[in-house]
């Protein structure tokens, strides 16, 4: 029967592509990370762990980890928290829930690069809508707030070009873009909680909304949360579009927004330092794969006991 051979034709292309596109590059990155290779040069010399040593000792890379972890550390909890909050509110509404859902999901669909350009414009210090709106508040009670008064007296911050604000502004846009996605995942989780559980909890004396949330909703959302958190982690580790759009060279004021994906791009593509780029790639890949593995084990354990 032809059947015995068919699988080779079915599996073959996928297998070849998997190896060539996903497995071999990891090997190449690992090998190159121990060299000073650059594209166009005939050869490369073995430099041992020098590249890794640089990553973990030089201040540039310290800033890289700083910016990356700051971004991940802010965007993940806030986009998950806001996603959950929005989902709980929308789920409990009697009407217009779908409308909010649609609006909050819009940023997920829009090309981040396009929206980054719009945000940059909205945050423009002189003609941007953001600071001009803030200026309208001058002379009102808002001036009692020291920060606001200072803004009125001089100028409001250059959100994207001030060393103290840049990373947080980028984080804000990251949250703006990401939380709608988390909201949708949480909404799916909420609809799958059986109604009787709430009735049962009420019988057992869970009267307040908080009790119901703590005793029923939150535990039942466990698997969703594991899922949402890891997805958010992996995605925010890979942030690139905004950083490149705002700061095509150097990674922001004082390298305060020099995230890993941008570092790989800058070192390897812009400066043709493939060795160091490969080393960052390996470290980066390590992070992301470990995160995914943790997610897998957590979710599998959940389904066993859940």
């Amino acid at each position: 029967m032809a059947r015995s051979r068919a699988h080779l034709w079915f599996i073959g292309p996928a297998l070849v592509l998997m190896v060539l596109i996903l497995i071999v590059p990891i090997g190449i990155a690992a090998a190159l990370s121990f060299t000073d290779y650059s594209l166009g040069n005939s050869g490369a010399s073995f430099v041992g762990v020098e590249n890794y040593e640089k990553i973990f000792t030089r201040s540039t890379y310290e800033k890289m980890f700083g910016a990356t972890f700051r971004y991940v550390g802010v965007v993940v909890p806030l986009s998950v928290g806001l996603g959950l909050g929005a989902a709980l509110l929308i789920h409990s509404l009697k009407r217009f829930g779908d409308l909010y859902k649609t609006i909050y999901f819009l940023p997920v669909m829009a090309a981040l690069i396009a929206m980054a350009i719009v945000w940059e414009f909205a945050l423009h210090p002189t003609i941007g809508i953001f600071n001009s709106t803030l200026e309208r508040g001058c002379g009102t009670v808002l001036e009692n707030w020291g920060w606001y008064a200072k803004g009125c007296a001089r100028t409001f911050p250059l959100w994207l070009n001030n060393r103290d604000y840049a990373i947080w502004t980028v984080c804000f846009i990251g949250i703006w873009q990401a939380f709608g996605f988390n909201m949708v995942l949480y909404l799916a989780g909420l609809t799958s909680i059986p109604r009787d559980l709430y009735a049962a909890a009420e019988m057992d004396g869970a009267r307040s909304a908080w009790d119901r949330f703590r005793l029923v909703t939150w535990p039942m959302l466990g698997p969703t949360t594991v899922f949402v958190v890891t997805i958010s982690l992996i995605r925010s580790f890979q942030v690139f579009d905004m950083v490149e759009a705002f700061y095509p060279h150097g990674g922001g004021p004082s390298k305060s927004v020099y995230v890993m994906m941008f570092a790989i791009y800058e070192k390897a593509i812009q400066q043709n330092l493939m060795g160091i780029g490969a080393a960052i790639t390996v470290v980066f890949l390590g992070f992301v794969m470990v995160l995914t593995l943790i997610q897998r084990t957590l979710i599998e354990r959940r389904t066993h006991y859940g």
Partner: protein
Amino acid sequence: MSDATAQGAGAPAFRFSTAETAKHAVLILGALIVLLPFYVMLSYSFKSPAEIMQNTGGFFGAQLPFRDDYCVKLGNPVEACMVTPVIYNYTTAFQKAPLLRYLLNGVIVTGSIFVIQVLVALPCAYALAKLRFWGREAVFGLVLFCLLIPVHAIALPLYIMLAKVGLTNSYAALIIPWTISVFGIFLMRQFFMTVPDDLIDAARMDGMSEFSIVWNVMLPTAIPALMAFAIFSVVAHWNDYFWPRIVITGNRDLFTPPLGLREFKGDADGDNYGPMMASAVVIVSPLIVAFLLAQRRFIEGITLSGMK
């Protein structure tokens, strides 16, 4: 939360509720923040440079004709150079950069990626789900392992490989890294597991070859899963900026929409904000409109991507 459960379905339709109002207040505030950049983008794509600079004109701008200095500089009489802001912004967007070309590239690239992904993944998923053969578990194990690898993260070695074979700055460079979707294989395999074996056995009895079973029996049953996967794939690759940025250097003819927009931004002085916003509208619109028309499908499709 408390309110919805306490009042239940029997509550009168229009009774005022503080909790409900508070919820709407919070959600409306959130919606305003979410919509702000969309508002800015759309509104400023309508306005004249002067209105943009002074932040006047409301949402649509006054639409008073203004003088296009560039047109005057080309030696045209002043009267012929008066333009309406909205027309100026959108025509400039299409003239200054080959936006239509970018959009076409976007369609070619995302379309090819999806078609190849399905051609590769579907037979593989079928074999993994329904055929018994030596090494099947190993192949599936490899698929699961590959699910851990985000292609963006290995962009650098992929770029080196493509550069070595001289493929950068080509459609091939934009498409090749995405031809294999392990997520697609995984998704289809899970779907095929639920298809009853009897269906396949019946097809075999009828003398169908394994090839025609894949394309004539399995493919039609998998349409819902394929739709979800199509949305996920198209949204991801239409919006992708990172990979095109790496492999396409300089050759404008190959720019995908996000890349084209970035180039537009590069030479933006004050006057160009209107056309820049207009091109952002053009590039963002196709997916947003499609999303508004088929929200449920889109959300399902994108949510599935979470499994990646």
